[in-house]
């Protein structure tokens, strides 16, 4: 039997402590929505036997705060989740316990006391891999040019659909040809109220260049979020 009861024997903290969990969400996990991820994590946290703090009240529950959203169909190496613990347990032990309860596609990369606020996040760095039979220097150049010019897309907002130019939200985008794939290394706005859904870049390119609109088995793309950055666009957010 597991030692999930151990948490009751640990020394109480004076006040609940917020711990940040950095994890990856890759492979099959890219298809899991934010809501499903929350539910999944609440169970992982319980299985791991962490000394979680529960809200007081009629229906006690744990507090989980996730960093910025990740659209379904995008992968990430820098997802973050804040949880509160009420007893002393080392970050190393927490990480070890968590990693015993997840598949590799959801592996925990770091656990540490949260210091910065999620509101400090301003940018995120992405790697796009676009596989298409049409990949050549000319297409790479066309994509690169497209990303430099005004780039209007239909965005769904609370007040219906709206044409928006997303170009100002692209801080940088480097396009390279790599065999049968086009790679884009992009830094996109990710601040609160100014968040660019990385999927929109694909939507825009599909409309402007015609890529990724034929047989799904012949063309595919992958989006991987690498890092989240502070307002200077360089320093990594932890």
């Amino acid at each position, binding site marked *: 039997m597991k030692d999930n009861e151990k948490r009751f024997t640990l020394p109480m903290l004076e006040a609940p402590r917020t711990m940040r969990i950095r994890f990856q969400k890759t492979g099959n996990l890219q*298809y899991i929505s934010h809501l499903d991820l929350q539910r999944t994590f609440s*169970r992982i946290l319980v299985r791991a036997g962490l000394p979680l703090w529960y809200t007081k009240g*009629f229906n006690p529950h744990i507090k989980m705060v996730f960093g910025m959203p990740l659209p379904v169909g995008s992968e990430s190496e820098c997802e973050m989740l804040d949880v509160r613990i009420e007893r002393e347990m080392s970050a190393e032990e927490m990480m070890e316990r968590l990693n015993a309860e*997840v598949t590799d596609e959801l592996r925990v990369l770091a656990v540490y006391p949260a210091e910065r606020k999620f509101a400090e996040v301003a940018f995120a760095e992405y790697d796009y891999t676009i596989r298409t039979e049409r990949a050549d220097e000319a297409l790479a150049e066309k994509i690169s040019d497209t990303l430099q010019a005004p780039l209007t897309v239909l965005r769904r907002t609370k007040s219906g659909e709206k044409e928006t130019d997303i170009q100002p939200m692209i801080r940088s985008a480097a396009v390279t040809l790599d065999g049968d794939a086009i790679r884009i290394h992009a830094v996109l706005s990710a601040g609160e109220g100014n968040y660019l859904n990385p999927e929109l870049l694909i939507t825009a390119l599909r409309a402007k260049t015609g890529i990724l609109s034929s047989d799904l088995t012949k063309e595919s793309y992958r989006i991987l979020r690498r890092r989240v950055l502070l307002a200077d666009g360089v320093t990594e957010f932890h």
Partner: protein
Amino acid sequence: MNTKISSVLKSVEKPGRYCGGEYGAIIKNKDEVKARFAFAFPDTYEIGMSNLGMRILCGALNEQPDIWCERVFCPWVDMQQKMRELDIPLWAHESGDPVSEFDILGFTLGYEMCYTTVLAMLKMAKLPLRADERAEDDPIVIGGGACAYNPEPMADFFDCFSIGEGEDNLVEFTKLYIRMKEEGRYTRQGFLHEAAATIRGIYVPSLYDVSYNEDGTISAIARRFEDIPERVEKCIIADMDKAYYPDKLVMPYIEAVHDRIMLEVYRGCIRGCRFCQAGMIYRPVREKTPDLLNKQARCLYDNSGYEEISLMSLSISDYTELEPLTRSLLEWTDRNMVSLSLPSLRVDSFNKELMERIASVRTSSLTFAPEAGTQRLRDVINKNVCEEDLMHAARVAFEGGKTNVKLYFMNGLPTETSEDIEGIATLASRVVHEYYQTPNRPKGRSPQVTVSVSCFIPKPFTPFQWEAQDTMEMLAEKQEFLREKITDRKVRYQHHNAKVSRVEAVLARGNRKLCKALEIAANEGFCFDAWDEFFDYDKWLSVFARADVDPAFFANRQFGLDEILPWDIIDCGVTKEFFKREREKAYAAATTPNCREQCSGCGANRLGGERTPCPKACRGQHEG
């Protein structure tokens, strides 16, 4: 995973249904196992992952190092469209390999309306629908579950059926398959014959001939070989404490319909309601001990992280050890913020103490099933609860802070009169009245009583198996009559679709002549008939007409007491004589005591069983 499948995941609804990779999923090396079993659930992933039977059986098969059992679900219609476009055959969830490459393909048949989905899945797997058209190398297609107790409407499509409880049976079946392959004497026919001859509960329809009278009733069911049983006796797990029970769960990422720990407390039911098939076919009652249940619950909690435990059984308050069980569970569940829930409550045993222990206190609603509106009709169906019980239960609920009560009833029960239907409206109003009579009711809120009425369906292996279902016109009239009688504004009324219930009755009591209709339905693309948005009654009528099947013959006809019934080939343990006695008592509005009070001689005790309340159980006869 198959790259074709992953290539379409970005373009379908809820890709989490298909992506797999769940924590706890069983991955084995396909080159190191001797048999691959595809366990198919004929509905969506979310529904299949809520099914306790599937979890148990997949787990039991995977306990065997030689066997790899994978799950198969029915892709939703948008995915089916992509599969046609890109020529993707039905695949197994864990490996992504085509189902047609497996050794054995099992379907769980929980509900008649899933039959068309089963056939649609066979087509998606690119397997011949009919068993007699399958090639030597095609998977053996086996069916099981509650509907397999009358397997005849599906007889042409299945190589065989597993009748009864599958934990040991499916393992034994697969092991015979492995053994015959290893010994080099496997042939499809040879294997099916040997399984039918040597393994209890295995029914191979092609080894039995059915002949008919001119009026369409059955004249004889004859076995083709002397070494197979005349009637196929269901298999049971004698000692539930020794039955396989999963200690780890596959954790779905997307929300399943029932997303919690399901703890099966006991099997069977002591009650014997005369319309209820489950209460008959799962006899004899066999309990698990509270110590074991507590250990299993703790283990499942540690391994799943679910914070709700549902105590599963047909009538939880009948469990003799409920008090010690909930006491030992509460010793650790409270501290761990785990709540208990009870899905099945009987009004006569619902009390304050029980309510305080269960989690459903957190919701504002409780559900009870009086089933009929008057005491006379409740006696006819042997429900054995009275109005006083219901009022008491409602009062307890209201005192505990509930405002909503849901009441289940049935229309079209044998001997039903307008008085019985009116009784439903009266009973609901009395529950409303009870609310205002409860001094400690929730302050400042008004009650809501929901009356949900389904249509009676005569089911095989019940005392009402011979009864005629009301015609659609009668059912519609009764539903309208009840609507007029419900005048209380605090009572909400909903009723089931009588059209679905009629098709369900046809399939439930059908014989092999139904196979033709189902084949036509499959070829026309029927699927997901259990979903309202896909059920089309007119299309069903057209299919029946073309297959020369008169739906009234199966649904609305009173079957003769001496008639050979399509399901007479199956022996569910309970005897026909008992059903006949119960039917007579029903017409005399006489009740039968429950199994614990007195043995009524249903016959199921000859199957054995440990920790069964039956005073006449013959233990130890059927072991090994």
